[in-house]
């Protein structure tokens, strides 16, 4: 199996056919280009986070989750720390949260990343579309700045 062997893992989530839900994959592409010469960063982009990704987490020193948020104000950018979830009812096989993934990495491999952050961008619309809403378009520079800063700090400390 191809090993991640990353100091920093960027794990994005979203569907590029559902409007602002595609901001996660968009930022993943941006990061891949921005950090093209940085071997310590590994980028994975998925439509859903699934339990298999726990193995990638276990091999990373730090992880930055990137996703849109339907509960935040459209266009807002938030960066928060994430901690491993305890065993919870209703954890799925087709979609798990950042905290549940960290919990799985801890239970299965005993080695979750030392640092885990979640970067969310408030969604204006997740209806069928390949375009972002104006609120998300306006916030892309800020999101990129926050992402770059977070990755650089993780690479420096881990």
């Amino acid at each position, binding site marked *: 199996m*191809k090993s991640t062997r990353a100091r920093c893992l960027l794990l994005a989530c979203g569907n590029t056919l559902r409007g602002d839900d595609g901001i996660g994959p968009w930022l993943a592409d941006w990061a891949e280009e921005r950090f093209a010469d940085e071997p310590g960063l590994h980028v994975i982009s998925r439509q859903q986070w699934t339990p298999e990704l726990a193995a990638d987490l276990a091999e990373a020193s730090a992880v930055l989750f990137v996703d849109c948020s339907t509960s935040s104000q459209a266009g807002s950018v938030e960066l928060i720390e994430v901690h491993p979830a305890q*065993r*919870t*009812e*209703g954890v*799925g096989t087709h979609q798990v949260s950042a905290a549940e993934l960290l919990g799985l990495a801890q239970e*299965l491999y005993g080695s979750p990343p030392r640092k885990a952050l979640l970067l969310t961008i408030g969604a204006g619309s997740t209806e069928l579309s390949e375009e972002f809403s104006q609120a998300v378009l306006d916030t892309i520079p800020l999101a990129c700045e926050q992402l770059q800063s977070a990755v650089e700090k993780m690479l420096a400390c881990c």
Partner: protein
Amino acid sequence: MSQTITIDPVTRLEGHGKVTIQLNDQGEVTDAHFHVTQVRGFERFSEGRPFYEMPSLMARICGICPVSHLIASAKACEAIMSVRIPHTAAQLRRMLNLAQMVQSHALSFFYLSSPDLILGMEADPKVRNILGVAAAKPELGRAGIGLRRFGQHIIELLGNKRIHPGWVVPGGVTEPLAQAKRDEILAMIPEAYANLGLGIGWYKQVAENFKPEIDVFANFPSLYMGLINEDESIEFTDGALRLIDAQGNTIDEGITASKYNEVIGEAVEPYSYTKFAYYKPLGYPDGSYRVGPLARLNIVKSMGTPKAEKELAEFKQLANGPVESSFYYHHARLVEMLYGIEKIEQILSDPLILDKHVRATAGVNRLEGSGQAEAPRGTLNHHYRVDENGKMTWANLVIATGQNNNAMNKGVAQAAKHYIKDGKFSEGILNRVEAVVRTFDPCLSCSTHAYGQMPLILTLVSSQGEVVDQVVRG
């Protein structure tokens, strides 16, 4: 007072379904049904599309087994084109289908059913999930994840996408296998064997603890059907179908994709959107049969690979004739995963596997074509008609879940009659009824997937429509 128990939705399945159980005035189970509550509609909206678009359109039916739809669809297109695909393309498709089988079986066994097997049918639903498995048996959780990643990564390497790869096309595949990819797959094989060895070893230790479930989990005589090679070994991508009876006697074989529609009919019941396939000479419902891992192991004489061959011999010892309990779908899945890993290793040693000739081309040479393959859950048949310009005029898909539909319904009724007495039931009983359906690993919606977050409500309704009892989960 007669009552109806409803389990809606049934959890830890691919898609959405519900179970209803009818009780008589004495609280005894009189009947039970497994309802598939979604409409697919793919046959209808493919009408008018160019036939060569069909594989990529049909792959969208399912996020778990898109490869089987790709292959059955491409083969139906090739029947329309009247072409025979190059040897290397056939081998590459076979490997892709086996990789999908391994990852899908790993999902079914380790993610969906192992919570019941590890934690128990009566365990707290809060821990009966993959996190619960990770806490109780982390080595099994890691093995399941490893096998899922093994299959998914091969699909990604071959098809350039983990889900819905567009690599399989009418006439073959779009690009040959690169040596670096072959070497990468070969390097993953030892870990896959180790992970599966853990799973098989653990299953054999605990299986007999489930003797009560084995006895009543769809444990009855039936027909069985699956693809088989001329040497009577198991096959997933080519070969022809064999049908055996409850005693193990072959009642039909050499059923090619084009003959399939002559011998297999589809009945409709008012309580489900999924049709009920049956063997036409025996009529419906007598001609109902089972497909999938249990059926495949029952119809074959050999696995064709040494490690799986030993496991097949052990599996055949479970019964004097076909193995009847659907609980043993779990066991059969493990044997098939072992076969899949071995066969992938064999295919990669084919001296022509890196050959560049991987696609045949042709236009419309026939106005009708069928293709069949084994999906993880059982036989899959695609049947198309086109006009002279290659525009689709009609399509029919017979999926594995429809072919197991009658057996799933009988199985649900058998378990319900055994466990529900005097109209009383518990969450553990509810879970056992669901677990019968899970043994078949049905794929209901073939598009939307979720479990666990959904509420599960079991309701007792009187003959006057009053709710007399209810268990709510989630």
